[in-house]
Structure formats: C-alpha cells, structure tokens
C-alpha cells in the first residue's frame, strides 16, 4: 500500500508542521510530550531533506528544540532559582506559541470563507456620467498609488468585457482557412513589426475562429507571407518575404 506522504510545501512554517505532527501523533498540546515531538520533527525534516530545500526557519526551530532536549539531559542546576532569574520554561513558551498560532490558523480559515463568499458578489461600475462630471473639475495631481493604477486598468478591461459580451456567432465559425488567410493578409499590413499572436487575434470572438486563425497563420507561413521567430517564449511575427508581391 502506498503510504500517504506530505511535503514541506504543505506547511506555512515550522509551527504549522509541529501542529500537524501533534495532531497526527495525537499528542496533547496542553501536556506536550516534547521528546516525541522533537523526534518526529527531526524525522520529518530528514525525510524531506532530499527533496526540498529546508527553509532556515525550520532549522532555527529545530535548533531551539535540540537545545531544549540537551538541557533536559544535563543534571539540574543545584543552585536555587532566584526570583528575578525566572525564565519561562521553553516548553511552555513553545506551547503558548503553538496555541496562538493555531488560533490564527483557525481564524484565517473562517476569513477565507468570508472572502470566497464576497468574491461571488459583484459590483456595478461607476456611471460614466460621474466620471465625466468629475473631469470638469480641475485636476490637481497628488501622489498616485500603484494599486489604483492596476485597479483602474482592471476596471477598463472589465468594462471592455461587458461591452463585448460573448455571443455565439455561428456564421463566424464557418469561416474557411482561405478566407481567414485573406483577412490576416489585410490585417497585418497595418501592424507594426514585430507583432504578436495577440495582435492577430484582436478580432477573434470565439474558439472556432481562433483555431481557423491559427491554421491560417500556418498557411501564411507556408506561403512565405508571414515569418516568425521566438524570443523568450514569445513568438514574434513579421511579414514574410513574399508579402509585398502577393498583395
């Protein structure tokens, strides 16, 4: 039987991993068996070591655990503790941290539910009339915010989507490769070289035309009307050598 394995990537940090181990080994968090936890933690890091680069945070916590363990192995200091020498037992400190961390883990799950629910609720764009009215005022530029810029762009694109709703256009899908080739020949006349695949599918409304366009591009390339090259995973198109003669 294949054993279920977990990787370090599933954890958001050493505390997350420790909580997982505590849960898996059914340890009592409020009366934590440190030996077992330390043993498990080391075993786990050893197991994933070959596959993953272990972040320094995991090793840092490991060092703290080992220090705790080594102290336990040493004979207790006979000198009585003075009151202001008091230090929180590292075990208590760890348990306190684990409990606090668990709190935030739980609450973030709750927040995520709210988040997902809110994602389903859509807003209505501000009316253009307002945008125009506001423009009549004098514009005084103050410090801009990058995320404002991103949001503004997103809004534009969303609006663009609204104004160009997807509608099945069956007539378009019947476009032949030859017809599409002719369209492309006309279209690329106006494009600045090198142009991208996106430039050539500007007018594509549905998947059918997309496929025909792709085939037409191959056809044009075969006819030497279109050439392309790769640069960083991007395809750059140019008009082919035969382009001027053909049109």
């Amino acid at each position: 039987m294949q054993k279920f394995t977990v990787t370090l990537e599933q954890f958001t940090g050493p505390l997350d991993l420790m909580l997982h181990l505590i849960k898996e080994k059914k340890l009592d968090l409020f009366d934590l068996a440190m030996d077992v936890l330390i043993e498990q933690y080391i075993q786990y890091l050893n197991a994933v070591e070959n596959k993953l680069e272990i972040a320094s945070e995991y090793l840092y916590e490991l060092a703290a655990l080992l220090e705790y363990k080594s102290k336990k192995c040493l004979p207790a200091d006979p000198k009585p503790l003075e009151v202001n020498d008091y230090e929180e037992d590292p075990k208590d400190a760890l348990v306190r941290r684990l409990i606090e961390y668990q709190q935030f883990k739980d609450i973030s799950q709750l927040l995520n539910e709210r988040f997902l629910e809110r994602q389903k609720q859509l807003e209505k764009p501000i009316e253009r009339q307002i945008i125009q009215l506001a423009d009549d005022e004098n514009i005084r530029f103050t410090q801009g915010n990058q995320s404002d810029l991103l949001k503004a762009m997103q809004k534009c694109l969303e609006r663009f989507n609204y104004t160009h709703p997807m509608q099945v256009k069956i007539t378009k899908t019947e476009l032949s490769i030859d017809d599409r080739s002719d369209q492309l020949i006309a279209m690329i006349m106006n494009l600045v070289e090198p142009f991208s695949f996106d430039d050539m599918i500007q007018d594509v409304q549905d998947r059918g035309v997309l496929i025909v366009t792709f085939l037409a591009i191959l056809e044009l390339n075969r006819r030497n009307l279109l050439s392309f090259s790769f640069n960083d995973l991007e395809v750059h198109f140019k008009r082919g050598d035969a382009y001027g003669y053909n049109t």
Partner: protein
Amino acid sequence: MDITLKAIIEGIIFVFGEEGISLMQLSEALDLGEDYIRNILDEMVKEYQSEDRGFELISVQDRYKFISKAAVHDYVQRIITLTKSRQLSQSALETLAIIAYKQPITRMEIEEIRGVGCEMMLKKLQAQDLIREAGRSESAGRPILYEITEEFLDLFKLMSLNELPNLPNYQEESSEHQLFE
C-alpha cells in the same frame, strides 16, 4: 440563501450597469423563454416607477438596464462639486493605466478600451507632463502614439514600467468560453 427569479434577474441587470443586458442573453443564462422573462421585466419596470425607488428599469432596443432617476442628478452633481478632485480623477487614472500597460498606443486604441472619447483627457495629461507623444503608428492615417513620462513614474513611485503590478489576463479567457459550454 435562496433568492427569487425576479431577484436573480435584478442582480444580473445590476451587474451589467450601463451596458445593459439583452433579453436574449438573459434568456440563455436563465434557460427560460424570452416571453416568460419579458413578462417579469415588464412587471419590474412598473415596480421601479414607484416614488420609493431611486432608479428605474428601462429597455433600449431590447437591452435592459437600470438608470438613476432624474431627481437624483442634482444631488450627484453637488457631491462631485463638494468632493472636488483631490486626487487623480478616475478617468485620468484609467487613461494613464491604459497607456502605461499598452504603450506606445494611439488615441483610437485607448478609446476602444475605455469606451469613451479621450481627446481632452490626453491634452490635459500631456499638459501635466504625465504622457508624451512617441512618434506615429504605421497604421492608416499614421496616428500619434502616446507613452508615459518619467513624471508619471515618479508620481506612482515606480522605478520603471517593469515595476507595474501584473495584470490578470481577461480577454483571452473570455474568447474561449462559450462555444463549448
């Protein structure tokens, strides 16, 4: 929570804002006949005429949308006057964003994306030194190309355009969806 069919229709029309939504689109989305939906819409048109509603439902060439009632406009105007533009206006931001992400770009292309004319806005932004002309496009009429300036980068605390936050890609997704739905 479950909501009624009328509520769903109301919600859809709401989301589409000024663009409105056609009876055909509603019919397809709800998988209900156009006549059936038209009846509900007719009813809604009447309900929204109530003096207790601040906007109404209208249809223009079988495209339905909500528009605010005339009585609201004066207040809207007042809010805008009171608020003044302490920051870049929304349309200035949008225009700048399009240029920043798509430069060099022609006025026509910007207008295509924004859906509104922007000749005045481009003049204003140029006057403010936030954009500048960057030669001319090869396309018909050789329209002027625009690009953003260092001033713009400075305003948005950007070292270079490479630092612009990444844009999720909408358009490609939208073209693929429907045929195989």
